[in-house]
C-alpha cells in the first residue's frame, strides 16, 4: 500500500472527510438562507416603494390630469438613483418617463412582472432587469413604475462569492487538518506496529513507545505494555519450568536407563536381574509421581480446580492428622491438631493434598536438632481456624525452618533447598500447595516459628458462615 493510500484509509482521515462534508453543507445552507432572505427583503421593499409611488402618481393624475402627470414623472425621473417610470397613451406610445426600451409585451399586461429594459440616458447597450408594476390609468393611459434589480443581483453575487470562498477554505483547511491528524496518528500507529512486529519475532523485552500526552493511544500503549510485561513474566516462568523439567525428569530417566544397561551387562544371576528390575520399577514409579504432581500443578495454575464444594477446613485438618499421625509417631515426632470451624468453598481433595504435602514436609524436615535427645520434642501442630475473612490451615514444626532468603524460592517447582537435597522428594510439594492456594484465590505463607517453619494456607472464607458444632470435633467413627 502506498503512503498516500495508507493515509486516506486512516480513521482520522475518513472522519475528517465526513466532518468536511458536513461543515460545507452547513456553510452552504447558512449562506443560502441568508441570500434567500435578503432577496425576499429587497423584493418586499421594492414592492412597497412602487406601490406607494403608483398610488401617489395615480392621485396626481386624478387631480392634475395628464400634464400634471407628465411633469411629475419628468421631475421624478431626474432625481438621482431614480425609479423607472413610463407612461404610454392608449395607442401604446411612450409619452413620458426614463425608460428607453422595454421588452415587448410588458406594458400589455397589468400587474407585477420582471422585465428587461434600458434607460434613456444609459450609454452602454446592456440590458438591465427591473421589477415593474403596470397600472392602467383612466382614459386608456398606462403607467409603469419599477425598480432596478441590479442591487439584488449584486448582493446575490456577493453571497455567492462568499459561499465559494468559505467552502474552499473549509475544504482546504479541513483536508489539511485531516492529513495532519491522520499522519500524526499513522506515525504513532506505525511505530506501535513496528514494535509489535519486533516483539512477535521474539524480542519480548521490547516495549511500545508511550507519549506524554496521556491520550487514548498512550493509554492503549501503556496497557499493551503491561500485558507484555505479564506475558514476558509468564514466558520466563515457562522457560524456567521447562528447563527444570528437562533437568529433573531427565536425571531419573538417565539413571533408569543406566541401571537397565548395567543389569544387562553385569547381572549374572536371576536374583541380580530381579533386583535391577525392582529398582527400575521403583524409579519409574517416582517418575510417574513427579509427572502427576506437575500435571496437577499445571491444572491448578491454569485455574482448572475441578468440582468445587463447600466444606469445613477443620474436617480436612482432622482427616490429614488422622492419616499422618502414625507416620509422625514412627519418625519420633508428635502430630497434633487444633481445628475450629472454618468453612470454605473449593476442591476438598486438592486442599487435602496441599495440607498433606505440608505435613509430609514437616515430618520429613521438621525434626528438632539433636541437642536434647531425651526430651520429648515439641509437637508438629496442624491448625484450622477462621481469622477475619480468611480460613487458615497451617502446619507448624520445630525443625530448622527455612532461612528468610530462601522462602520465596521454596515454593518454586523442583526447588529443593540445600538442606533437603539428601532426602527423597520431588521438590514439588510446596509448589503444589502454593498452586492450590492460588487456585482458591488464597496464598501459601511461610513464616518463622522460631525455631521452625510455620506453613500456612490462607483461603478466603465462605461468606455467611454457619457455625456447625460437629465440624469442629475430631472425626468420629463413620461406620
Amino acid at each position, binding site marked *: 500500500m502506498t503512503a498516500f493510500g495508507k493515509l486516506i484509509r486512516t480513521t482520522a482521515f475518513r472522519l475528517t472527510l465526513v466532518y468536511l462534508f458536513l461543515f460545507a453543507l452547513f456553510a452552504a445552507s447558512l449562506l443560502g438562507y441568508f441570500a434567500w432572505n435578503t432577496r425576499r427583503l429587497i423584493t418586499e421593499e421594492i414592492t412597497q416603494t412602487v406601490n406607494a409611488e403608483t398610488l401617489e402618481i395615480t392621485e396626481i393624475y386624478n387631480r392634475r390630469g395628464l400634464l400634471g402627470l407628465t411633469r411629475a414623472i419628468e421631475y421624478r425621473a431626474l432625481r438621482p438613483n431614480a425609479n423607472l417610470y413610463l407612461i404610454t397613451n392608449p395607442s401604446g406610445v411612450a409619452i413620458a418617463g426614463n425608460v428607453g426600451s422595454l421588452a415587448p409585451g410588458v406594458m400589455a399586461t397589468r400587474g407585477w412582472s420582471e422585465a428587461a429594459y434600458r434607460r434613456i440616458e444609459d450609454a452602454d447597450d446592456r440590458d438591465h432587469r427591473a421589477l415593474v408594476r403596470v397600472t392602467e390609468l383612466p382614459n386608456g393611459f398606462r403607467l409603469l413604475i419599477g425598480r432596478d434589480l441590479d442591487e439584488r443581483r449584486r448582493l446575490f453575487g456577493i453571497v455567492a462569492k462568499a459561499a465559494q470562498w468559505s467552502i474552499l477554505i473549509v475544504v482546504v483547511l479541513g483536508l489539511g487538518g485531516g492529513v495532519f491528524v491522520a499522519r500524526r496518528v499513522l506515525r504513532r500507529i506505525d511505530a506501535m506496529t513496528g514494535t509489535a512486529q519486533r516483539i512477535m519475532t521474539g524480542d519480548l523485552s521490547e516495549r511500545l513507545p508511550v507519549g506524554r500526552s496521556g491520550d487514548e493511544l498512550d493509554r492503549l500503549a501503556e496497557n499493551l505494555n503491561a500485558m507484555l510485561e505479564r506475558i514476558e513474566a509468564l514466558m520466563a516462568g515457562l522457560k524456567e519450568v521447562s528447563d527444570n523439567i528437562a533437568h529433573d525428569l531427565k536425571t531419573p530417566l538417565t539413571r533408569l536407563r543406566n541401571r537397565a544397561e548395567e543389569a544387562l551387562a553385569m547381572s549374572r544371576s536371576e536374583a541380580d536381574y530381579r533386583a535391577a528390575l525392582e529398582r527400575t520399577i521403583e524409579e519409574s514409579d517416582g517418575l510417574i*509421581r513427579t509427572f502427576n504432581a506437575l500435571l*496437577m500443578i499445571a491444572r491448578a495454575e491454569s485455574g482448572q480446580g475441578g468440582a468445587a464444594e463447600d466444606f469445613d477446613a477443620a474436617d480436612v485438618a482432622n482427616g490429614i492428622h488422622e492419616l499422618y499421625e502414625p507416620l509422625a509417631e514412627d519418625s519420633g515426632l508428635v502430630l497434633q491438631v487444633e481445628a475450629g470451624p472454618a468453612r470454605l468453598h473449593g476442591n476438598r*481433595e486438592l486442599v487435602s*493434598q496441599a495440607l498433606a504435602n505440608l505435613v509430609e514436609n514437616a515430618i520429613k524436615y521438621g525434626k528438632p536438632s539433636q541437642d536434647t535427645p531425651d526430651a520429648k520434642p515439641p509437637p508438629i501442630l496442624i491448625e484450622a481456624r477462621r481469622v477475619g475473612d480468611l480460613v487458615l490451615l497451617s502446619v507448624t514444626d520445630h525443625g530448622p525452618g527455612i532461612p528468610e532468603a530462601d522462602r520465596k524460592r521454596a515454593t518454586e517447582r523442583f526447588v529443593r533447598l540445600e538442606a533437603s537435597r539428601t532426602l527423597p522428594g520431588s521438590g514439588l510439594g510446596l509448589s503444589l500447595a502454593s498452586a492450590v492456594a492460588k487456585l482458591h484465590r488464597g496464598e501459601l505463607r511461610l513464616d518463622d516459628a522460631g525455631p521452625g517453619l510455620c506453613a500456612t494456607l490462607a483461603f478466603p472464607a465462605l461468606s455467611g458462615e454457619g457455625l456447625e458444632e460437629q465440624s469442629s470435633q475430631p472425626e468420629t467413627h463413620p*461406620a
Partner: protein
Amino acid sequence: MRLLIIEDDRESADYLVKAFREVGHIADHAGDGEEGLAMAEGGDYDVLVVDRMLPRRDGLSLIGALRDKGNRTPVLILSALGQVDDRIKGLRAGGDDYLPKPYSFAELLARVEVLSRRRGGPAEETVYRVGDLELDRLSHRVVRGKDELTLQPREFRLLEYLMKHAGQVVTRTMLLENVWDYHFDPQTNVIDVHISRLRSKIDKGFDRPLLHTIRGAGYMIRDGIR
C-alpha cells in the same frame, strides 16, 4: 474369571491379555469401541477393562450403551486422564472403578479381582470371619480367638475393608481411596504405617499371622496358606 480388555493400543492389550492368562484368567481383547460393545454384549464376562479413549466409540459412551441395555457387568476404566474430575466423570458414566495410566499390573489385577467378586457375591454379611478373627460390623466388635481387640475407628474401617476382601490382594491406593477417601498419591509410606499398627493389634502374640504383605502389590488378609 473371564475378562474382556477393550484397548486400542495393540502392545498394551497384548501385554494385559498375556499377563491375565499367566495368573490363570481368561482374557479376550477388542480393538475399538464398537467391537468391544458387541463382544461385551455377546460374551458372558465377569469384568470389562475399558480404555477411555477408543476409536469408533469412546469408552464412556460404550459403558453408557451397555448400561442402557441393562448389562451390569462390572467395568474398570483405564485412562491417561488421572484427575479427580475425570474419575468422577468415569464413575458417573457407569464405570465401577477407575485406574489412571500408567498403572502397575499388580494394581490392575487387585482391582479387577475385587470387582469380579463384587458381582454375584454373597449379600453383605454383618460378621466377617477370617480364621479365628471375627469382625462384627454392627456392634463394632473385633475378636480374635478369645480376646476382644480394641481398635481405633479408622483401624476398624481398615480391617473391615481388608476382611471384606479376604483372600484378595488390596493395594495401598485402594486402601487410601476406600478407607480414607483420598484420591491423591502420598509421597511417603503412610498406609504401611497404618497397616503395621493394625498388624500389631491383630497378629501380635498369635501364632498364625493373618495380615500378609504381598510384595510389589499390597496387602491381603487370609487364614494360612490357600
